[in-house]
């Protein structure tokens, strides 16, 4: 409805506005309302289902719906990541854990009244906070007028790549992204510290039954793995021009490996990609990112100041962005592989103990 109101006012202000804009806005509102309704339905049904398998699936649905919502909100990069990470990797990790932890939650809720009270209190506080918020989609909101115009108007001249999100991500706020790569690395360390098994434990474990005997799955899977990897590379190197970049590429690449592991068994994959080497690669990705910063420092710039990387500032920016995206891609891809394979091996251990 806000869309409608604002677009009508736009219509009144500018006679020249095209009819298509109005039409597309109406379609947008409709999709917006439908998506929000579906999101709400999913979230609420999540609170009530006792079947964890269904919960995990609903969570995947929720992520996919929010990814669609992000597309509607013009956040294509975020949508891409959410679809790959939220609906893809998170879901598959949760399913792997369910194989060990059991499928049903069989306990009553914990103090549901108190919880409801806390939640409603927090919600009221948040609603209170919305009263003075700038209107949704308002072009004159502070968010749109203070720092953002610089990115939109200057990034073309300063960095010269079309995707502004990549410019901001890799250059203007490159340090945040560095932090983010380190977060992924930290997660790898955490998972390894908790779940890594000794080699004799690996030998004693009974790997989860691979899908090898399912002919159709195996053949189709085999056909798909190379294109998926190719697509990952496309996403990696196309991030400057369209939605994509190191994160999405890394996740997609690891998806190919995960598919391989599901089809042919964890141990086959662990051998094929050499797990210890992959661990080193995860660390290397972080170091590649960091070393770009250090090289910039040695060339007389600030940390991560890509302008200092080459004679020409623009070339420097391009080189810097490509290299750090590579670092991001390597770390994310290897991190997701290591995390998944470590989890899946652990399933083998619990299988081995129960057998």
């Amino acid at each position, binding site marked *: 409805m806000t869309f409608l109101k604002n677009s009508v006012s736009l219509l009144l202000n500018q006679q020249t506005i095209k009819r298509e804009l109005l039409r597309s806005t109406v379609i947008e509102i409709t999709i917006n309302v439908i998506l929000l309704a579906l999101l709400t339905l999913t979230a609420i049904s999540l609170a009530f289902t006792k079947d964890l398998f269904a919960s995990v699936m609903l969570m995947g649905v929720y992520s996919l719906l929010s990814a669609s919502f992000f597309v509607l909100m013009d956040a294509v990069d975020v949508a891409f990541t959410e679809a790959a990470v939220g609906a893809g990797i998170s879901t598959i990790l949760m399913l792997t854990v369910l194989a060990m932890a059991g499928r049903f939650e069989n306990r009553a809720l914990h103090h549901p009244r108190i919880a409801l009270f806390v939640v409603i209190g927090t919600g009221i506080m948040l609603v209170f906070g919305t009263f003075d918020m700038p209107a949704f989609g308002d072009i004159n909101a502070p968010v749109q007028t203070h720092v953002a115009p610089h990115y939109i108007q200057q990034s073309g001249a300063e960095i010269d790549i079309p995707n502004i999100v990549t410019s901001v991500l890799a250059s203007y706020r490159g340090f945040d992204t560095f932090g983010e790569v380190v977060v992924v690395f930290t997660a790898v360390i955490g998972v390894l510290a908790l779940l890594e098994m000794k080699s004799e434990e690996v030998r004693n474990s009974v790997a989860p039954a691979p899908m090898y005997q399912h002919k159709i*799955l195996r053949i*189709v899977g085999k056909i*798909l793995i190379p294109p998926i990897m190719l697509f990952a590379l496309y996403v990696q190197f196309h991030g400057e021009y369209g939605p994509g970049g190191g994160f999405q590429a890394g996740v997609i690449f690891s998806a190919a490996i995960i598919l391989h592991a599901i089809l042919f068994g964890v141990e086959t994959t662990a051998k094929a990609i050499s797990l210890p080497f992959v661990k080193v690669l995860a660390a290397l990705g972080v170091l590649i990112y960091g070393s770009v910063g250090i090289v910039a420092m040695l060339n007389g710039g600030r940390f991560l100041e890509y302008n200092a990387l080459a004679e020409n500032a623009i070339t420097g920016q391009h080189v810097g962005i490509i290299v750090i995206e590579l670092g991001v891609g390597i770390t994310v891809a290897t991190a997701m592989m290591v995390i998944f394979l470590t989890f899946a091996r652990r399933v083998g251990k619990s299988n081995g103990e129960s057998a």
Partner: protein
Amino acid sequence: MAIFLDAVSWALLVLGGFMCFSGAVGIHRFPDFFSRMHAAGVTDTLGSSLILIGLMLQTGWQDTVLVKLLLIFLFILLTSPTASHALAKAALHGGLRPKLGKPEVSDDIPEKFGKPSSESTNN
């Protein structure tokens, strides 16, 4: 020619949309897991294929979008039936049995499919 292409593409889009819709209705209306999956398969394969072809006709030759759509088309053509297959097999493996007409247990129903049961018996 352009009008002809436009008309064909719209026809495909509408038809695809109808297929998706009918698939959605089917998921709601069909009685058990396997028949519902049949409906969902229609949505996935036929509906989206038609829509993709319709979109391809809309884009014209000069854009890379055409190639991308073609690739998506191929991908869906390959994965969607496989996914349905895997799902059905998993369900069968998990103990879910298709609902077969009247609840009669006779010798001509293969032992493999077991007794007919309602869809709610997913262990």
